[in-house]
């Protein structure tokens, strides 16, 4: 489509454009609008309004269409061959918040589980809400070990932005004073149950360096005035968050960032807008806006702004950049370094241990805690005692204890029947009581940045809009495999130390993507020759384009990443507003 002129161009012109409305887009929108910029949020998916568009949020079990809300095998196979791979996220209650794979194709040169939600709010609606800070060790690791490139920032530069984000979204957690897991601005922690408390006492007595703390999670346990004024209230312990929360108990863009942005009067959201490329003005040496394809009308349109924030999620922001070629950027936008699409990272998981807890048979719990316990990283912390000779970096555990319910003897897919199960009144009575306590620890491990773990643009396979798609080629290597062995052993040791029975280590295998923490595809760095973004998330080669989602990550740490994406976004927005004022953009 030709460039717009005059009035039409003016109508489509804003101070800032934000691409994507998920966790990072919501934050960019909030910060930019609150700092006075007229901001357009372009979101490829449909509108999801807080409260109004959570159709399954209050459904009782007996209102399900299908057994336990599980989707029929035929539907899963036809529409969700990838989204189903987590095994727990895609149900009748949630499918409207995940993409249909048959409509959103990509190529798996190696298996890659790309779990996505295309709607206003993105995956902030369905995320697990675990919220941890990267530590000083994380920001220094690449430089110290000569891996990848050095982060261009240090922990101290991000710390105030972590504070800022935690205060707004509300994170419940316990301060621990650990250097490898800095404390933040927390609302009161959730409670451990009897078995978790006993586990903590006994395991810490044997392994003092393996601290056991309550999960830090973006739920309100003591809402602030600001949160209440946005219409959010205290978490009600329903644990149905993934359907959308009618209480605003957990943080999503829909209940938080976008609401705050809307209240400024400076926000326009345009759902159904697939951003296909950045518009680059060779003469001015900067981006003037973006091109979109309207998902409904299939018309192209252009929007203009002084500054563009790419917040479309790590792979989609990289996709937009790869698809934005010009004579200045023949290999993709800002890709002079050839690092665009490379260094894909995630967190490897699916490994740990579980056990039966023999004590507390007469104790139970009430309420459904949407959170578990956390064991911060305890390997390779920079001292001799924690140094491993078999791998670099580390892992944390997420876990918890609970008593399985009535569904505990159901045959799992491909599983066995555990002996004759019986039937009749005796089995009914038994299943009406909780089962024995179980405790599990599941590892989340750091993946190193490897240049050849990459996504590339595939013009041979196009989607329903005729747009090129991505090809994935990502594998884990010896460092991750060695770490996995330790993840399994160390978890089992801790459960043994607690005196639990039937301790069972497991490695259920891991496919890249399954951590749902894809990142690294446009990394930050100090040198334009080896990185795509600078210390403020600006594209080195085009300073009025900021990329603030997971693409920016220079290393992965082992903690869930979204809190860091939000902090980077808020920091970058502050930079953009000031730079624009100074006329630098």
């Amino acid at each position: 489509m030709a460039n717009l002129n005059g009035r039409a161009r003016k109508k489509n012109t804003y101070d800032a454009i934000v691409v994507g409305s998920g966790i990072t887009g919501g934050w960019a929108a909030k910060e930019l609008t609150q700092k006075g910029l007229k901001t357009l949020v372009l979101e490829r998916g449909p509108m999801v309004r807080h409260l109004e568009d959570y159709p399954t949020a209050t459904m009782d079990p007996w209102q399900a269409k299908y057994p336990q809300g599980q989707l029929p095998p035929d539907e899963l196979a036809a529409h969700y061959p990838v989204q189903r791979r987590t095994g727990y996220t895609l149900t009748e209650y949630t499918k409207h918040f995940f993409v249909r794979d048959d409509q959103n194709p990509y190529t798996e040169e190696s298996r890659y589980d790309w779990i996505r939600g295309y709607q206003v709010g993105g995956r902030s609606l369905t995320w697990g809400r675990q919220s941890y800070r990267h530590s000083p060790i994380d920001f220094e690791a690449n430089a110290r070990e000569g891996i990848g490139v050095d982060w261009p920032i240090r922990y101290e530069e991000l710390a105030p932005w972590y504070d800022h984000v935690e205060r707004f979204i509300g994170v419940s957690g316990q301060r621990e004073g650990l250097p490898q897991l800095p404390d933040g601005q927390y609302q009161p922690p959730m409670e451990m149950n009897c078995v978790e408390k006993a586990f903590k006492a006994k395991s810490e007595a044997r392994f003092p360096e393996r601290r056991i703390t309550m999960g830090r999670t973006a739920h309100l346990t003591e809402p602030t005035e600001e949160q209440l004024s946005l219409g959010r209230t205290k978490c009600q312990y329903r644990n149905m968050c993934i359907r959308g929360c009618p209480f605003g108990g957990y943080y999503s863009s829909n209940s938080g960032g976008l609401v705050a942005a809307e209240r400024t009067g400076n926000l326009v959201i345009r759902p159904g807008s697939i951003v296909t490329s950045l518009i680059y003005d060779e003469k001015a040496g900067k981006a003037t806006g973006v091109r979109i394809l309207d998902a409904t009308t299939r018309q192209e349109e252009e929007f203009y702004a002084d500054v563009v924030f790419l917040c479309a999620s790590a792979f989609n922001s990289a996709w937009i950049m790869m698809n934005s070629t010009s004579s200045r950027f023949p290999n993709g936008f800002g890709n002079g370094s050839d690092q665009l699409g490379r260094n894909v990272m995630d967190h490897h998981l699916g490994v740990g241990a579980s056990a039966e807890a023999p004590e507390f048979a007469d104790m139970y719990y009430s309420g459904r805690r949407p959170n578990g316990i956390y064991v911060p990283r305890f390997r390779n912390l920079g001292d001799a005692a924690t140094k491993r000779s078999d791998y670099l970096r580390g892992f944390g555990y997420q876990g918890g204890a609970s008593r399985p319910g009535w569904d505990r003897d159901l045959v799992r897919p491909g599983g066995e029947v555990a002996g004759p199960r019986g039937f009749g009144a005796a089995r009914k009575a038994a299943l009406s009581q909780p089962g024995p306590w179980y405790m599990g620890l599941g590892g989340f491990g750091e993946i190193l940045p490897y240049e050849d773990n990459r996504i590339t643009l595939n013009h041979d396979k196009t989607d329903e809009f005729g747009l090129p798609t991505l090809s994935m080629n990502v594998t884990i290597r010896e460092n991750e495999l060695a770490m996995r062995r330790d993840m399994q052993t160390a978890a089992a040791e801790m459960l043994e130390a607690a005196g639990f029975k039937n301790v069972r280590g497991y490695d259920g295998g891991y496919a890249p993507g399954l951590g749902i923490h894809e990142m690294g595809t446009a990394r930050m760095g100090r040198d334009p020759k080896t990185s795509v973004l600078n210390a403020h998330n600006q594209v080195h080669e085009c300073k009025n384009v900021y990329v603030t989602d997971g693409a920016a990550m220079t290393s992965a740490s082992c903690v869930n990443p979204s809190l860091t994406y939000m902090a980077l976004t808020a920091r970058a927005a502050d930079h953009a507003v000031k730079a624009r004022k100074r006329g630098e953009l």
Partner: protein
Amino acid sequence: MLLSRRDAIRGLTFTFGMAATGFAGQAMADAPALAWTPTALTPDQARLVDVVAELIIPKTDTPGAREAGVPQFIDRALADYFDKAQAERLRAGLDRMDADARAAHGDVFVALTPQQQVELLTGYDREASTQSQAPGERHFFPLLEDLVTVGYFTSEPGATVALRYDPVPGAYHGCVPLAELGRGWATR
């Protein structure tokens, strides 16, 4: 507790070989009429499912499978949820139950005495426990029993009477005496 439950059922001592010496021919006069119209099951299959579901989860001090609408739930699962292979497996299982009932006692399953019915089910339960449950090889009995179990405990009476259900707990208490709660929670 689990062990004694299993032992109790083993006490019913049934083996397939001795089937013909049972209570052949004692038709159950009161096989209940269906109060609903099946869509995926035939009327005969629906009556069979109705009887088996109630045997698997009978009415005790809390409602049974029939009262909880489990037979209808199974009919719906067959209509909308199961894929072809699973549906065939279940239907073949139902056919087999009648065939075994006829061979052993000369009449369809629903016409047998409760004791004869229990003996047949006990045999299936044992037989299934020694068999792989890989997707292509699932024994019909655990498949059926799982459906009854899910149908029952996710029904309103199952969740709210046989179990405890609280849609909006409001708080989490990590150490509560089980005696105070009495039953397991319906949802996690």
